[in-house]
């Protein structure tokens, strides 16, 4: 059952991306990209890493 707790990490991308109030601003900019843009692009990578982590931690027989 303990393994299942890893799935809770999947809530994070929803919280991170679905509340524009958090990130709807221009500063700090990165390489000229306003915060609004690079913040959301960063979430693409973070989500990918979180999913990768869960793939490894919740592996079951038959997943190969």
């Amino acid at each position, binding site marked *: 059952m303990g393994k299942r707790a890893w799935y809770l990490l999947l809530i994070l991308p929803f919280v991170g991306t679905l*509340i524009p109030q958090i990130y709807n601003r221009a500063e700090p900019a990165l390489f000229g990209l306003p915060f*609004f843009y690079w913040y959301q692009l960063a979430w693409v990578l973070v989500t990918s890493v979180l999913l990768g982590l869960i793939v490894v931690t919740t592996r079951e027989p038959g997943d190969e």
Partner: protein
Amino acid sequence: MNSGAIVLVTLVLGVTAMGFLASRWGAGNLSNLDEWALGGRRFGTVVSWFLLGGDLYTAYTFIAVPALVYGVGALGFFAVPYATIAYPVAFVILTRFWSVANTRGYVTAADFVRDRFGSRSLEVAVAITGVLAAMPYIALQLDGMRAVFVQLGGIFTTGGGLLALAIPFVLLAAYTYTSGLRAPAMIAFVKDALIYITVIAAIVVIPAKLGGWGHVFALSANALAAKPKPGGILLAPSQYFAYATMAFGSSLSLFIYPHSITSILAAKSRGVIRRNAALLPVYSLLLGFLALLGYCGLAAGIKTANSSSVVPLLIARFFPDWFAGVAWAAIVIGALVPAAIMAIGSANLFASNVFNQFSTQRASGEARTAKLLTLVFCAAALILVLFVPVKYAIYFQLLGGAWMLQVFPAFVFGLYTAWFDRRALLAGWACAMVASTLMAVSTGFNPNITIHLAGATITGFIALYALAINLIVTTLATLAVGGTRAVHQS
């Protein structure tokens, strides 16, 4: 013909040969539906990554997302959170669906709904919804191709572009008929490679030539503010709810589309789906950068009434002819791959769930029916794009997206619980179909509608409002009939 046109024609002919040769890929009896429509359910992580990437990130997406950003600014960037949270959704729901489908031999989402709820009407409802959503989507892939041909001009626009559109599409129909899902799966390698090369080159070269991202955003902010309907590089607070509901609602329906289901079921194991949910977001990153090209269009001072031509105009302006040819091929082949899979997915729904009804002993002749139907869907899409103004195809696609989401309760809840009654699900679906259509028509086919509730004004995504109606009706009706259990308990 210029060198770009030669590169384009050569690459398209090359993938056509691949499409026909794909029938020999991995021995399989192509008169069997599993083999023809799902490539024998044998695709590993790498093949599935290219196939799903080639399938979900279509040419239309690559034209329409930057076009939207060019037109309205920040609101158009909703495609990025959408293409991010779609993967946690997929990770949870699709691994479960894949497992059930693999055990019971499903080829479509409607197969599952039929098997789970034992309802013929619900099976047909799910099947028809999928086909209605896929049809305009195929047509818009053709429109993505047309944007390239308009840019090339000359022979590519003779007869309103009829020949240029019809030739690759007829070839597509022919090799899809012959090779089934193996054809787009093989071509997807070329498509994705070309897309990566094009987008990486574009995001390195174009902003640099325009003086860097900082400059691009400064110019875009001015250009957007000066529009008749001003936009901005940040959201207005009144757009927050629309932005979030568009991203959320779209992410829930992405994987219910017939072309998504088809590619998912072609995977050889549950692990392939899990790993791909983690690896596919790379494409979303690509999509995000591509969206920013919309701002490059504004900063470069591109003026066009038809926003679909923003990306082609940028490519033509900033790249030498031969490299523009690579980009044209990326868009054209990027249209062919998803179009083939959408046609296969729709054909499966008709062959398995409308003309027949699902049974675990699959009906005979299904593969032959599906193959012929693929030709019918390709022909219908071609007619739609050639003879119906593209405006209506876009309206139809928008509506199709809202409709697609209304299958969510039967499909997703069916995977987890047997509580919902099948008649209640059908009632919820029907109410939501009518409601989403009325809302879309009343807004002049806008994705969002403004509602006034208790003194507050909220603008949100129509598809999600309709889903709320769907859930309320389904729940109340289930309670009213006393919760008849689904027939197939798993």
